[in-house]
Every structure is written in C-alpha cells, then in structure tokens.
C-alpha cells in the first residue's frame, strides 16, 4: 500500500484525501488548524446559487468520516526530505512520516485590506471587507454595527488587492466580481431601502450562472454598477464615508456619501503556501502561487517529481474549481504511483 501525505486540510486537501483513499492508498492529511475546512469555515453562502457553505462542508466532512485515513490536526510540517524516491516528512510535533507521494494543498490567504491605506480599513468605522460581511450575512446576525441603524447607501469596491501594482499583485483573483454581486443581492434583501453600488474596473463573470446572477442583480435588485476604481475614502463627521472615483463611462470624477463600504478583497498565496514551497523545494511564480508544470495538461504537477498540487495554492480559484482541481490531483497521483 502506498502512503500519500497531503499538506493542508482545506476543501482541496479533503477532496484529494477521499479520492486517493478510494483509489486504495493510505493517506495522511495534515492541517495546521484545529478543524478541517480551511477558508470555507469563514464563508456563509456560496455564489452563484447561495448554497450554504455549511452544506458543502458537511458533505465533505461526512465523506472524510466515511473513509479510513489519518488526519493530523493542529500540526505543521517542519521539513520534507527526499530520500531514495521516498519523502520523509517531519512535523513540529516531532512526528515522522514516510510517503511515496506528497500533495500540497496549502490554499490561499485573503489580502490584508489595511495595505490599501487609502481605503481606511480598520481606521474608519464603516469600512469592512467581503470576508467580514460574509460573517454578517448569517441569518440572525446584526448588521447595524457595521452599516449603522438605517443605511441609505452602500458601496462595494472591486479588485481590492488584485490587479494592482501598489498591492504587488498583478493577477485577477477571479472570485471577487461574483462575490460582490452575490453579497450585493444578499444585502439588498436584508436592507431593501438601501441603494447599492458596485465600483468595478471590469466585471469578470466567467463561471456558470455568474452572468445570469449579475443580470438579476441589475434587474431584480436594482444594484447599480459604476465603472471606475475608488481613489480614496474619507470619514465624515457623522461617520459616513465620502468616496471618490471616476465614472469612467461619463468621463467625469464622481463623489458620493455612503454608510457602508465593502472591500472585495482578493486572494494571495500567503504564508502557508510560501512555507510549503520552501519546505518541499518546489518552484513558485512571481505572484507567489505555486508553479504548475504547464497550464493545460499538467496543472497538478509541481516542479519536483512526486509532489503534486491541488487547489488555490496554484492560483485564485472558486470552491467549485478547487474541488475539481483536487479531484484531478488525486487521479494524477494515482496514475503516477502505479507507474512507479
């Protein structure tokens, strides 16, 4: 029986672990947090159809429970050494594992919105991120601290930390556009009297049902889309925010007062993935995301033989794409092991 160690117990790690167990291998899944699920634990509802994140998570949990593989929680990898076609993995807890293959599924981190200083996140009272809002969108949660008692106007800012030289991220995080549309609709349902605006540079509705949801946002929920990137936000005396952008389609600067500003934060490879790259001696791209052997046919292969990649450690990815990528990683590991 071959042994595969998976680094990172988010949805990619969970899905890969299940698929590899089904293929008849012994799997150890290593997760640094106290529970599996990764970033999905922080999300309430998923685009494009408002599926509760719980539902996806619970299904994946059940799938893991039904299968026999080992899970090491609150565990971090200290080193990965290659020795005679085997991988020797040591954890900070002192555990030593020998693996025939390794899957890196170390995921992403959310962009720290404080780095866009001009938007005043953590300084102005009514500036929050999409991740903060997601928690507030749970049924029964109180929106009034973030949005005030009776918010008249709310704005979303797209591409915060993405497509931005100043943030050091040239790439598109892919999921923020549709997240903005989803959250705008959810807010409108909760606060029907509020006017909601999305400030975007391009709307990238790449996935199934994304464009339809965008249209629904305009048609049924009166969400307004203004093409222009916010230059700055400033807090006024009454704690509302003065925001400035160019209405690029009119060709004139535009300012408005809003009661809540939501920053659609992008994805970064983050510390976990950088550490994984260093420990496994695998290559990464300028963006920090892990380098795959090619774009088309080998997107689960790292620069080192026997080390495979799954999910958003390779590029920003939706939940849907992550699960598919993780599943395909398991297939690649399986066929590679059979050839050994």
């Amino acid at each position, binding site marked *: 029986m071959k042994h595969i160690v998976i680094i990172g117990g988010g949805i990619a790690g969970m899905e890969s672990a299940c698929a590899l167990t089904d293929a008849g291998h012994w799997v150890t899944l290593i997760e640094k947090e106290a529970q599996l699920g990764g970033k999905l634990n922080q999300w309430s509802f998923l685009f494009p159809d408002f599926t509760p994140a719980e539902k996806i998570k619970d299904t994946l949990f059940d799938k893991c429970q039904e299968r026999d593989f080992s899970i090491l929680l609150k565990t971090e990898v200290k080193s990965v050494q290659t020795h005679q076609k085997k991988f020797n993995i040591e954890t900070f807890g002192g555990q030593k594992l020998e693996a025939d293959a390794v899957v890196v599924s170390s995921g992403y981190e959310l962009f720290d919105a404080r780095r866009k200083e001009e938007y005043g996140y953590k300084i102005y009272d009514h500036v929050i991120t999409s991740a903060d809002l997601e928690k507030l969108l749970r049924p029964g949660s109180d929106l009034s601290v973030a949005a005030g008692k009776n918010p008249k106007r709310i704005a979303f800012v797209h591409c915060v930390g993405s497509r931005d030289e100043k943030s050091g991220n040239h790439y598109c995080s892919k999921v923020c556009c549709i997240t903005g549309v989803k959250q705008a609709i959810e807010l409108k349902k909760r606060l029907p009297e509020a006017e909601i605006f999305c400030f975007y540079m391009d709307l990238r509705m790449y996935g199934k049902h994304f464009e339809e949801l965008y249209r629904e946002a305009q048609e049924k929920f*009166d969400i307004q889309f203004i093409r222009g990137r916010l230059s700055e936000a400033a807090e006024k005396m009454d704690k509302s925010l003065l925001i400035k952008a160019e209405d690029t*389609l*009119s060709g*004139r600067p*535009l*300012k*408005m*007062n809003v009661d809540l500003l939501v920053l659609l934060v992008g994805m970064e490879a983050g510390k976990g993935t950088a550490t994984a790259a260093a420990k496994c001696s695998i290559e990464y791209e300028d963006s920090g995301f892990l380098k795959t052997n090619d774009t088309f046919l080998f997107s689960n292969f790292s620069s080192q033989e026997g080390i495979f990649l799954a999910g958003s450690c390779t590029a920003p990815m939706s939940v849907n794409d992550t699960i598919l990528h993780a599943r395909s990683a398991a297939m690649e590991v399986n066929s590679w092991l059979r050839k050994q």
Partner: protein
Amino acid sequence: MKDFGYTVIKQRTIDYDQFDGRLLSDVLRMEPSFKTCLSCGGCTATCSANDLVSFNIRRINLSLRRGETYELESEIQKCMLCGKCMLVCPRGINIRNVIMLIKKSILKYKSVQL
C-alpha cells in the same frame, strides 16, 4: 469684489448626493428592462443619428443615472426614433420607449415646476 486675474473654478465632479432621482425612477418603473444596460455601446454604434450629429445614446443611461437632466433634454431631441438600436441591444432593452418616457417625464417635472 477684487479681480486678481484668476477665479475660483466651479467643480465638475458629479456630486451624487445632489442627485435628484425622480426622473430615473419614473423611467425605470415604466421600462424596467432599462435597468440592465451594460454600457456596451452597441446602440451608439448602429445609431443612424450618431453618424451625422454628436448624439450618444449609450450616454442617455448615464446622464439619467447621474441626474444630468439638462443635458438629457437637448440630447434626446436628436433621436429619430428609428429603433435600430433595439435590434442590436444585447439585453433587449426597449430603447425607443426609454426615449419617449424621458420626453414625457421631463415635461411632467417641468410643468410641476411651472
């Protein structure tokens, strides 16, 4: 008042807080398809008036949404109501009706003011 050879310049920023949305809400209520405009410019590209005079039908949406009623009133006079724009519109907006509604609504608010 003294003349120093220069003056304070009026700001051209669109101040959304000064926006009177009555005309917009009238038009959207009666022609909801107009909410879905993508600003793609297909209408303007095919417009039979645009080629002859400066008339940008795509900007009608923006003028309406930014409260630039004054500009709107003179602009829509240039439309010949041929409806070619409707053949192109990817969102199936009844643009001709939008023009008619704007004309009517402008008159309505003018008469109220009078």
